[in-house]
C-alpha cells in the first residue's frame, strides 16, 4: 500500500514536471528570463538541506531496527529541524520575489514556479508532521512508512530543483 501511495505522488508531480518542460519548449525565452531571476545557490542549499535530512531519516530507521530508540528519535528530530530550515529558506525566497514585484500572475514561468514549489512545500510541511507522529509512535514499521514519505518529498525536490533552477 505504501508503494502505491508513493507512486501516486511521484506520478502527480511527474505530470507537473512534464507540463513545465513542455511549456518551456514552447516559450524558451520567457522561461530563460524567469529562470535568470531565481537564485540557484539558494535552491542548491535547500537541496543539500533536504538530502541531509533524508540521510538522517534513513539512519533513524536503522537505529530503531537495532533497538536504539533514543538515537532514532534524535535523528528524526534532526531530519525535522532540517525540514524546517528548508521551509524557512523557501519562504525567504518567496518574500524576496514578492518584494521584487514578482507573483504567481507575473507570467507563465512564475505561475508554474509557484505552483510546483508551493505544492512541494505543502508536502514538506505534511512530511514533518508525519515524521513527528512516527517519532512518538515509533514501531519499526511506522518509521519505515513515515520516512518513506519523507524520502519521496526529497526525491521530488531533487528532480524539481534542476528542472526549475539549472537547466535551460
Amino acid at each position: 500500500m505504501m508503494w502505491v501511495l508513493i507512486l501516486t505522488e511521484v506520478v502527480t508531480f511527474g505530470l507537473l514536471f512534464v507540463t513545465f518542460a513542455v511549456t518551456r519548449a514552447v516559450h524558451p525565452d520567457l522561461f530563460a528570463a524567469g529562470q535568470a531571476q531565481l537564485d540557484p545557490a539558494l535552491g542548491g542549499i535547500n537541496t543539500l538541506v533536504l538530502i541531509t535530512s533524508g540521510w538522517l531519516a534513513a539512519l533513524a530507521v536503522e537505529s530503531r531496527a537495532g533497538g536504539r530508540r533514543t538515537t532514532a528519535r534524535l535523528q528524526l528530530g534532526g531530519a525535522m529541524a532540517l525540514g524546517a530550515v528548508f521551509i524557512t529558506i523557501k519562504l525567504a525566497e518567496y518574500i524576496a520575489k514578492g518584494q521584487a514585484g514578482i507573483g504567481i500572475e507575473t507570467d507563465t514561468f512564475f505561475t508554474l514556479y509557484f505552483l510546483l514549489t508551493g505544492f512541494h512545500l505543502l508536502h514538506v510541511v505534511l512530511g514533518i508532521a508525519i515524521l513527528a507522529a512516527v517519532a512518538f509512535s515509533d514501531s519499526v514499521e511506522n518509521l519505515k512508512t513515515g520516512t518513506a514519505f519523507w524520502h519521496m518529498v526529497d526525491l521530488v525536490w531533487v528532480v524539481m530543483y534542476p528542472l526549475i533552477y539549472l537547466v535551460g
Partner: protein
Amino acid sequence: MSRNTARQITQAWGILVLLTVLSLAASHSGLGSLAVNGLILAAVFAKGRWMLMDFLKLRSVPSGWQVLFLCWLGLITLIAWGATAFPVLHG
C-alpha cells in the same frame, strides 16, 4: 544499527552531496547548454536512483516496483532534456 547498512546510507548521502555541488558548478560553467543540460539531468537520474535504492530501500522490494520508479525517473529526465533541446534543434 547494521554498520554495513548505515555505511551504505552515508556513502549514498556523500554521493548525493557531490552530485548536487557538481550540477551547480556545471550550470555556471558556460559550456554548451545542451551538453551541460544532459550532464545535469544525468546527475538527476543518478541521484534519484541512489535515493530510491539506499534511502527508500527500493532494492529490497519486488523488482516490478524498481522498474516502475526507475522508468518514471528516466522518463522525466528524458522529457526535460528533450524540452530544452527542442528550441535549439528547431532554431
